[in-house]
């Protein structure tokens, strides 16, 4: 076993132990409420996987978390802590929605690439502005991106209640797009091949998100652009020494983050709700931070972590529905414990695990 494999093993073991611990404590809480933890676990897993509708919802949530997880990871590799995926997704979704409203009579084959492009541009700009402030003025991205989340929120509330809301409608949302620009839902795609599955919001964007995972992986570790970004992220003075422009890389990385976050708009607006809605991105951006951290900022890890949070969301909803003593808040508690142990306390057992792996390696 070489050093790299040993590292992968350590990371995997540490993550698994932390997750088990989070579930163990959740189990104690459920038990103390007088419910059977095993039954709760069973319900949750059944809710997430047990039947095709549940699975559809799980993967639908997973799609969102993949995008925002990647939006955090790309920044992280460039030394940035992008907590603005929330706002970037919001603005990216606005771009997607406007394109769909504007070109709703066109073919999906033209509108889809345009929508992808628009969400990249809209979300990208929303990411690049804080990036510019960071690169040229040294304003910390944690502060500016969170401010941009609020700005995005205010802009959207105004647009939706005054500009985009059709007359005589009460709720702050745009009108529905024509059906021609809807992204086919999974059950429709399966139908083309003669397969029957239940209708869920899961749509073609899921496939696009897997493509994004692959592309980000190649971008970061296989291109000279990713090389520059990682150099800036790890050692800024070495980057300057090598003639790599730190400010350009920061701005570009933030723009890429914003673009990736913007794809949430594709899944939510073009793929599911078919209209621009208030707070369609609620919480997805922030959960992306946890997804990326638990997935070690690596696309493969992000895929697994996004799936985990998909399960927690869908299975948790099912759980609060089925088991009386467990309500929505307890589900949030379980998610919180996962973030606490797998994200914040990730190194709790690391020394012991490292010791153990070292022993195996020596043998």
């Amino acid at each position, binding site marked *: 076993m070489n050093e790299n494999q040993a590292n992968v093993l350590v990371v995997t073991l540490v993550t698994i132990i932390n997750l088990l611990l989070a579930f163990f404590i959740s189990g104690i809480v459920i038990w103390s409420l007088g419910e059977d933890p095993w039954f709760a676990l069973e319900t949750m897993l059944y809710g997430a996987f047990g039947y095709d509708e549940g699975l559809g919802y799980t993967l639908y949530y997973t799609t969102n978390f993949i995008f925002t997880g990647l939006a955090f990871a790309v920044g992280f590799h460039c030394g940035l802590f992008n907590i603005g995926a929330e706002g970037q997704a919001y603005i990216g979704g606005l771009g997607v929605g406007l394109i769909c409203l504007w070109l709703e009579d066109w073919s999906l084959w033209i509108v889809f690439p345009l929508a992808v492009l628009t969400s990249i541009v809209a979300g990208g700009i929303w990411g690049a502005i804080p990036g510019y402030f960071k690169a040229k003025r040294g304003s910390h991205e944690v502060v500016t991106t969170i401010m941009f989340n609020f700005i995005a929120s205010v802009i959207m509330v105004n647009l939706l209640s005054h500009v985009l809301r059709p007359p005589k409608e009460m709720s702050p949302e745009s009108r529905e797009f024509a059906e021609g620009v809807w992204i086919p839902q999974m059950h429709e795609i399966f139908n083309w091949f003669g397969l029957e599955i239940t209708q869920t919001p899961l749509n073609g964007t899921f496939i696009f998100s897997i493509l994004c995972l692959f592309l980000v992986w190649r971008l970061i570790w296989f291109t*000279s652009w990713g090389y520059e970004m990682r150099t800036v992220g790890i050692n800024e003075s070495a980057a300057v*020494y*090598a003639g790599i422009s730190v400010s350009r890389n920061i701005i570009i990385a933030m723009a890429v983050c914003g673009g990736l976050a913007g794809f949430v708009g594709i899944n939510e607006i073009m793929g599911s709700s078919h209209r621009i809605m208030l707070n369609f991105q609620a919480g997805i951006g922030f959960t992306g931070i946890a997804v990326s951290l638990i997935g070690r900022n690596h696309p493969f890890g992000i895929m697994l972590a996004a799936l985990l949070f998909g399960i927690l969301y869908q299975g948790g909803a099912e759980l609060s529905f089925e088991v009386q003593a467990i309500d929505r808040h307890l589900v949030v508690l379980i998610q919180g414990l996962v973030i606490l142990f797998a994200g914040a306390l990730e190194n709790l057992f690391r020394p012991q695990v490292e010791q153990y792996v070292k022993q195996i390696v020596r043998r």
Partner: protein
Amino acid sequence: MSTTAIELTDINKNFGSVCANKDVSLKVKSGTIHGIIGENGAGKSTLMSILYGFYQADSGEISVKENKTVIRSAHDAIAAGIGMVHQHFMLVDTFTVLENVVLGTETGFSLQESLQNSKLELQRLEQDYHLEVDINAVINTLPVGLQQRVEILKALYRGAEILILDEPTGVLTPQEADHLFRILGELREQGKTVILITHKLREIMAITDNVSVMRQGEMVAHRKTSETNREELAELMVGRKVLLQIEKAPAKPGKPMLTVEHLDFTDDSGVHRVKDVSFEVRSGEIVGIAGVSGNGQTELMEVITGIKSLQKGQLKLNDHTILPSVSADAAVMRKYGMVHVPEDRQRRGLVTSFSANENIILGYHKDPAYNQLIEMDKTAIMQYCKKQMEHFDVRPDNPQLRASLFSGGNQQKLIVARELQRDPKLLVIGQPTRGVDIGAIEFIHRQIIAMRDAGKAVLLVSVELDEILSLSDRILVMFDGQIMGEVLAKDANERALGLLMAGVRKEAA
């Protein structure tokens, strides 16, 4: 017969799988100056940290003044009469000398009272050991030589009978170093014991009574200084014969490759670092810039290599003129034919968490040789890295290994391999052998001479005077951001350079 001040018996210390000290035994006689010499990583600092209580030995015994002693912390060490002067001073910059000396030993509630009490004691110490320092001076107004004195006073004030000095001359001019040695001599007269850790042979020969040599964690020899010589010690340190003086043919300077005119630089905090510096470097010659570290050499190098932007003056590099109005970063400088081996290899020259093959292309990663249409050509990079590692004898020659896992010397060879293989017009190289073992020093020096003989211009910046003297053809001395003077290497000697380094102009000397 004098008594034994310190005796270490069979000390072992492991860090994980790395063995830092292996069965080390050492006997230091009272009232002597005992040198411990060895390359970086030989285990000198670990041994002294065990003696001073920073680390616990895995096994072995420590006796102080012929009593078996257990030293668990620096506190225990001080109580046993051991004092340490660290390589990096442990002083509070904004406190006065008196406050620094008293720090940690205050008694009672009122600070003023303990300061008053300590004042007399401190003045007595200063007189007894000829360690004059103004006790009311604030530390950051004192030159490093005096700051070091404060460190020594601090140790003596705490009742140290045995004083450990860790690489004490790294930051001093030759004159200041001589002064320090006089002080150490004085301490010996007064019956104190001094342990001097260093990697400089000159210092061992100049001042010590006995010397112990360490290599790869083991104590390989003990000698009386009067019965040994530099060559023998060097051989003991490295484990084979080394050439101390480098052979080189006379330089054949060609046309100017780098011309620096009226270069001026002020840093972000407003300190005027480089003041109106002008010089030129011709192809086929090595120009050395000497000076105590922190006198503007770093900033001068950073401006020349495009790391910091040019503020005032102009640079001419290989017929390209660089003016303050035209921004030229490191990439542009490379394009004009400059390569740069930076003085801080860990922080600048390498990305230590990258593998060797990622580091071998740092700064050249856009080169078409390493890139396909979209992605980088990993196979080509791997092959190139493998080839360079063999050519420059980088060990282990594993391109996949993280840079941080190579020794200092091998890290430096990796950088030298990367930069020297670019067929440059001008090589700018800073502290080429800092923290590098003697074997690698020899190799790197030969590479630098080879560059010169191949008709390249070389600008060498180093705080090691020996290095400057043995490599350079012309020597410029920097002090306080200015060039104090230029000396031809064949006319140079340590004393004259030392005066220039201390800011004394030739006319005045």
